[in-house]
């Protein structure tokens, strides 16, 4: 309780705000750390060929409380899929994720369309939003048995019948899903995909984005081969973003790298404070 040298906590709070906000305001970035698990996911997306009738199933199962980590991951992966012209089908089992299903892809598309004038990403053909469904757990279980996903899901988030959308005009099944990616901080929702997203003879490649707290759980699945790639918190998203920028040099650095920089600086702040506290402790003990 008593210590000779104690910074006022308000000064520490001010440092925290500066450390986190400064990169956001000044667009200051540092090179993110290399993440092998993120590289694996990048390779999986790179090796997925855009084939007519095939698409990627992307689940956003995060709310505002983990959006700082999960939304960054979702952004880079969806962007990568769109750049590679792999149709993206978005879905969530989590009510609070619903707004992201619209805002994230629309932002990415407007960025891509300004970057590449003339190119278009059309709703229904290049991406579809299935929205949130109550009782989605049962829906997930029925995907593997479905003969036609358009009949399983019936309508998209805007109540348009799926069979009216170009992507679902022909019957689609689980084997039309070339890649499954899911982003969440909720372990239970992740488990349901691991368990049910497969048939006897086919399992799509599975990429997962977890929060920093659930990394140990996620690694169990990566080690067992049930996951083909993993984004570990915002750091994973940042390295993925860097890989994207290497591949597409015209691309502007995105928020993932900015946030990652801020979080890194704040960590260093704490480590620095700990060192400072210990040194001053040693000095004061010697003096007394």
């Amino acid at each position, binding site marked *: 309780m008593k*210590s000779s040298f*104690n*910074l006022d*906590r308000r000064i*520490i*709070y001010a*440092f*925290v705000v500066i450390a*986190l906000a400064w990169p956001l305001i000044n667009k200051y970035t*540092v*090179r*993110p*750390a*290399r*993440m092998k698990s993120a590289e694996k996911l990048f390779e999986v997306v790179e090796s997925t060929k855009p084939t007519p009738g095939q698409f990627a199933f992307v689940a956003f199962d995060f709310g*505002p*409380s983990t959006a700082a980590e999960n939304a960054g991951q979702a952004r880079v992966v969806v962007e990568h899929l769109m750049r590679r012209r792999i149709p993206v089908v978005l879905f969530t089992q989590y009510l609070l994720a619903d707004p992201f299903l619209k805002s994230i892809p629309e932002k990415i598309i407007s960025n891509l369309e300004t970057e590449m004038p003339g190119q278009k990403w059309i709703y229904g053909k290049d991406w579809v939003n299935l929205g949130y469904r109550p009782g989605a757990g049962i829906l997930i279980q029925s995907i593997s048995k479905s003969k036609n996903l358009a009949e399983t899901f019936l*309508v998209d988030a*805007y*109540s*348009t*019948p799926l069979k009216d959308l170009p992507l679902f005009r022909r019957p689609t099944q689980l084997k039309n899903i070339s890649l499954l990616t899911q982003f969440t901080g909720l372990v239970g929702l992740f488990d349901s995909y691991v368990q049910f997203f497969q048939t006897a003879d086919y399992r799509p490649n599975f990429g997962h984005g977890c929060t*920093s707290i659930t*990394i*140990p759980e996620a*690694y169990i699945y990566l080690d067992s081969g049930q996951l083909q790639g993993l984004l*570990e*918190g915002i*750091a994973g998203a*940042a390295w993925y973003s860097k890989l994207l920028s290497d591949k597409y040099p015209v691309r502007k650095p995105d928020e993932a790298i900015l946030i*990652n*920089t801020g*979080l*890194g600086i*704040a*960590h*260093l*702040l*704490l*480590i620095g*404070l*700990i060192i400072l*506290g*210990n040194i001053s*402790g040693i000095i004061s003990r010697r003096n007394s």
Partner: protein
Amino acid sequence: MMLSITWIPIVALIAILLGTLLVTMLPRFFAGRNYKQILIAGITFLAGLYYFLDFVLPPKLPEMLGGYEFSKYHREISQGVITVGSMAFALGLFNLLYVHGSKIIFWKKGAINSIALLSSLFLMMVFTSNEWLAFEEVNDKAERIRTLAEFSRKIESDVNNNIATEKTPDERMVLLKEHAVIFVGETQLRLSEAKEDLPRIIRDGINNQSKEINKILNANFKFRSLGLLTPKLMKLAGDRQQLEDYFYKKSSTKKLYDYLYEGLFVPLGSAMFALLGFYIISAGYRAFRVRSVESGLMMIAAVVVMLGQIPFYIYISDALPDIRLWLLEIPSAAAFRAIKFGAAIAGLYMAIRMWLSIESSSFVETKKPGGGAK
């Protein structure tokens, strides 16, 4: 008949367990207690007994013991138990009214905040109830059409199963037709109030369904038509629900509720949660001072894990992320588990003591417990 060898000793064990319990506990149970205390302890025991037996007994007793399923009404009983607890909900409300109401009445310090509290409580109750009622109303309108579809199905099944009804099937058909015409007209009228931004699918759905229902009703409407009518009515009910939902989302009820919920409740919660970002840094700074082996180890582990999760680790060692993961997966997981094992056993023991009311400091007793608390 013989019993499977494995479970004879087990039945005996349960009997011994319960027997010892009862024999050793009974005299204590009544000793020195008045009727009120015995009643309280008795009810405590009975409430626990159901869940205890539900767990201990097999899902279905063997046929020779009657094949009884003890847990047959588990859902209903559990719901009853939850109901008991849920009746306490107003205690919280009473407390808030008491504490803050008296502050306002006697105009004590903080009375203005108490007014803010009670008025936001009141407002939120009003708007949440409104939201609930509006939601029920939306459902209700669709429900009426759905009921009609059920009616159509029932007429069909009653005739097929030769069930006699008060009204003849023909009379029922007339009623069905009357109501169907009314509901279709009502829905059409409602549709005409909708603006351009109503999703096409809802508008088209209602128009198609109405057209087809009218066709079925106006053409030679007889018993055989029911099979066609039922699904159309069901679909119309679904579309009607979406239409009402569209109006509801535009209503000021919904918007004011959303304002309170998304403008205050959610951000206040997120902001409180985010305070942890500040506090974890200041707590770390204050606490991680090397004073002993323990605090040193804790500090080192924390620093290593932190270094392993930020981009700057490359300046120190490439192995840091792996060390971080190892620390979390091996020693941390093991220590957590050990703590949980101990706590689980202590919790079980506590549960038994509380179930049987066997400690004199339990809240059943009202006299000073023995032994000296210094």
